[in-house]
């Protein structure tokens, strides 16, 4: 079990999904943790595409792209660092590629631990690290099909 865990951590996992992340995927992921009875707390962060108004034009979707190989490498390192820093049972990270409509989900970060502090601190850390270090790009597509490029605050 422990060995299995260590081996799993060594190869970068895929985090990318085609299109929006469905609420059902999140429910399934939660349900899979019910056999792990050493978990006391989960924290889930979800990023949702906003229908932002920019210069009077409304965003209808974001089309995500990434430097996939580098992103997976960076996220792998973030994952390892997070396991070092926090006492977690498990963590899951998913990000959309391609088109995600306003109101749909593009990021799903899920941490689990025996206690709430670790789960919540780790989730926060992961979200900040992913936003800062993963080379992911968002083309904001307006209702009139023109576009601009998303800039994170």
């Amino acid at each position, binding site marked *: 079990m422990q060995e299995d865990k260590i081996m799993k951590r060594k190869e970068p996992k895929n985090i990318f999904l085609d299109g929006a992340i469905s609420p059902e995927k999140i429910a399934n992921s939660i349900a899979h943790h019910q056999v792990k009875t050493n978990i006391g707390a989960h924290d889930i962060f979800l990023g949702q595409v906003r229908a932002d108004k920019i210069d009077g034009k409304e965003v209808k979707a974001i089309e995500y792209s990434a*430097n996939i190989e580098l*992103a997976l490498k960076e996220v792998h390192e973030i994952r390892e660092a997070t396991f070092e820093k926090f006492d977690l049972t498990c963590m899951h990270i998913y990000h959309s590629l391609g088109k995600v409509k306003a109101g749909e989900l593009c990021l799903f970060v899920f941490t689990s631990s025996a206690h709430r502090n670790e789960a919540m601190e780790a989730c926060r850390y992961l979200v900040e690290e992913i936003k800062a*270090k993963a080379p992911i*790009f968002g083309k904001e597509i307006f209702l009139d099909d023109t576009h601009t*490029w998303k800039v*994170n605050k």
Partner: protein
Amino acid sequence: MIHIHLYGELTDIVGKEKIEMSTFQSLRKCLDALKEEFPSLNAKVYRVALNNEIIDEDVQLKQGDIIALMPPFAGG
């Protein structure tokens, strides 16, 4: 040949996601040649990765190197 991979907004400027450059004495010279071809790049902020490693300083290039030019990240 040096392979240049462009991301995000930079694909709008260059008009495609991948181009090749024959200038490869050094990373800086290669990027200078690229900016001469696409002057709008001068106004842009981006990070550079060489063969999948983020890089800040100038280095010598070799045949087949892959340079990624990445504007500010916007995940999430």
